[in-house]
């Protein structure tokens, strides 16, 4: 490596999330030493202890904003970061916890916690981009470690990461997977879902669950029509759209259209 100057400082931040995306980072076993060689991992609570100090060249942000405290903390993270990259469905769309956006949060708190009076939480779970400007969003629940390495490599070279926003269907066709919708009648979110997983589920004869959120230019109403033809009921379709990316606008709108 013969890049001039000091190594870029990288930080990994956690908001409301399951830590799965951070674990994808640690899962980069083969590349981890190369990453550590290329950047100075200055803050990463899941992997090491270290104080927050100074500014960071790149911040990877996992998790959504669910508390007033986190809404303030993300502002400070943004101020300390030259480049801010959100990683995963929580950070880019609010995550599975965005199901609260469609329900009564107080009722949830009362059912779940023995002493609800100790719980201070917002009524919604929202994406990082709803609070601060985001430079790049890496999709997935969890993120794909190959794509994470790509984002870091691209950042180091100053190029745009190759994480195409087209459908999962394209990934099926590239790998030669037989379409589960057409050949088996299995409901699939692939035609409206952002690529990135390599068509993992259709590769195992399952429909896509939409882990990477909406692709660019979705047409959810047209897909709903086809899912109905395949025998999926209205409540089933509503639940199909409400999982890890329930808070992403096209999925949210289509699920709400299924409420009435």
């Amino acid at each position, binding site marked *: 490596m013969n890049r001039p100057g000091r190594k870029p400082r990288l930080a990994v931040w956690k908001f409301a999330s399951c830590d799965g995306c951070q674990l994808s980072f640690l899962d980069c076993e083969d590349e981890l030493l190369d990453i550590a060689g290329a950047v100075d991992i200055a803050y990463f609570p899941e992997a090491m202890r270290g104080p927050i100090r100074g500014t960071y060249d790149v911040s990877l942000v996992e998790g959504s904003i669910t508390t007033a405290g986190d809404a303030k903390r993300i502002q400070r993270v943004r101020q300390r970061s030259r480049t801010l990259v959100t990683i995963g469905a929580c950070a880019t769309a609010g995550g599975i916890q965005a199901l609260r956006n469609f329900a009564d949060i107080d009722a949830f708190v009362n059912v779940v916690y023995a002493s609800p009076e100790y719980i201070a939480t917002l009524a919604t779970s929202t994406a990082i981009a709803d609070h601060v400007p985001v430079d790049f969003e890496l999709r997935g629940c969890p993120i794909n470690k190959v794509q994470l390495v790509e984002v870091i490599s691209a950042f*180091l070279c100053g190029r745009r990461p190759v994480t195409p926003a087209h459908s999962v*269907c394209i990934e099926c066709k590239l790998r030669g997977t037989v379409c589960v919708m057409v*050949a088996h009648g299995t409901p699939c979110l692939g035609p409206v879902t952002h690529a990135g997983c390599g068509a993992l589920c259709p590769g195992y004869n399952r429909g896509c669950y939409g882990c990477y959120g909406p692709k660019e230019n979705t047409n959810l109403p047209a897909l709903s029509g086809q899912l109905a033809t395949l025998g999926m009921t209205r409540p089933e379709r509503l639940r199909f759209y409400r999982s890890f990316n329930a808070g992403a606008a096209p999925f949210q709108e289509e699920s709400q259209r299924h409420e009435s």
Partner: protein
Amino acid sequence: MDDYNDTAVITSEGLQCLIEALLNRSYQVVGPQIRDQAIVYDTLTDIDQLPQGWSDEQDGGHYRLRPRADGAYFGYAVGPHSWKRFLYPPHQSLWQANKDGDRLYFKDERPDPPRFAFLGVRACELNAIAIQDRVFMGDAYSDPDYQARREGTFIVALNCSEAGGTCFCASMACGPEVKTGFDLALTELLNEGPHRFLVESGSPAGLEVMAELPRRNTTRADLQAAWAVVENTRRSMGRTMPDTDIPALLLDNLTHPRWDDVAQRCLSCANCTMVCPTCFCSTVEDSSDLAGTTAERHRRWDSCFTADFSYLHGGSVRQSTRSRYRQWMTHKLATWVEQFGSSGCVGCGRCITWCPVGIDLTEEVRAIHDTSPKGKGEAR
């Protein structure tokens, strides 16, 4: 009649001998087989791997395998794969660059092309291969990898004995009878005698392979049976393309409301372009390693249905589904003629079957035709 043109009759043992003769010539034999409830193309070594006793039911957005009682080896229509996977692979590494100090070293990353023998290439598919030949090696700027793969390929064609529910090769003048572009051509005969195949050679290489097969001479009855097979298929096409000047129709109707209508239904998922045996668009992607010492350029299939495809400085030119579908159809059926000398569609029906919402280009053309002030009344 060319001096390499000959015919003979073989049985299923002869078919196995054919596969072996090709394997002995170190071809990778690729043919139809069942995987994940569909008939796909993959390498094979034995006739037992062929989808004997299976047919398919096809319609817009619908494909199901169906058993058949007659034991036919090739009693189905085309499936989700096309031969383009092999001649023009979905992913291809182009070159690698390594940095050593201040110097860059470039390395051609393309592997030696495999030599394929394709078994069971339909008339529509032969026409599709001929179209891609014109695209990739029709002028001074040829694609060297495509050309090497193509020139090394041995083609065993097949006269269709079964038209699928979405087939319309007859109305595109691309089938069901194979005419040129093969080394050997088979017609599977199930009537007027025992289960057998009529074999025809179409090249010196084909004639040489044919001479090694256990065979008998062709009778008038065999030829008549083979003719009847193709005629029967021609009469059972699942779809038809309107018989009109399609380039003029589409280019005269660029603002027709039908484009808005289809955009309401289309998912812009790109399945139609991926399965089309003539669609040839690709993009290049660059990658670099963490150390910043190795970079690679890579090619992969792309589609006019994506936003990135028409990205120019500052944004994508075709943002709407309407503009993407219209680009696809007007290129395929209209501007292709001017560019490459033929329609870009061979009537294989894959884009209809494998569209998750069953959009049918023959229907879209018909709708524009029937409601266009200029076209009305000319078709059918």
